[in-house]
């Protein structure tokens, strides 16, 4: 199956922050994000979270 659910996509979005995804997973995630606003938002939330923690650490 090439289509994945938001739940599966969210797991991949998280995993992607820790390791490069294998080709098949990356492709499925990309396709999902093309039509899914919810997961696109989650992806940006995860990005904000990562940047915020880096900033928090450096910021006195």
């Amino acid at each position, binding site marked *: 199956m090439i289509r994945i659910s938001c739940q599966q996509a969210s797991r991949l979005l998280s995993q992607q922050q*820790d390791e490069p995804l294998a080709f098949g997973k990356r492709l499925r995630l990309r396709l999902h994000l093309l039509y899914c606003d*919810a997961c696109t938002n*989650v992806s940006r939330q*995860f990005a*904000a979270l990562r940047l915020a923690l880096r900033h928090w650490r450096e910021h*006195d």
Partner: protein
Amino acid sequence: MTQDAAANPQLDFKVLAEHRVYLMKVARLQLRDEHLAEDCVSDVLTQAYEKRASFRGDSSLRTWLTTILKNRIVDLLRKQWREQPLELPDEDNDNRIDRLFDAGGHYVDMPSAVQDPAELAQQDGFLAAVQRCVDMLPKRVGQVFVLREVFGTDTKDICKDLSLTTSNVWVQLYRARMMLRTCLERGGFGHAQPR
């Protein structure tokens, strides 16, 4: 370039202690215990002073101290994890996350849009909300997450440091991120932006 402590007289205890506030902030987030964090940071500064000859000056002093702190924290966590079994059954955490999705695996509530993640990440209000939410994570989930995101440890090293499997680390980090985004939906993503 500084090669050793003798050539680097300014690396005295006072210079090291200037980083105490920073080290305490990180240790507190990681350990959630003021006394433990204080002991830990004192150990780190003492160790750094004793080992000051090995500071090469090719990384920043703060980076070097952060590495010493991370190693000390990993020792403490290993000990804690050995002595206290898991506080919450993992299924409780997973049920909370599963409820965010309907039977078809779609989000029940639409996650908030973030226009500019880099800009949001600079805002004091958002940083305060993130810190509050990290403090509310289940203990172990939070510990793994802070090792990953604050110390920047890669997942392979977390596995080695804490004797966890790769998939377990991924699950912990997924839980952490999902719980944090849920927590930030209540007063982080939506409300920290200027109107």
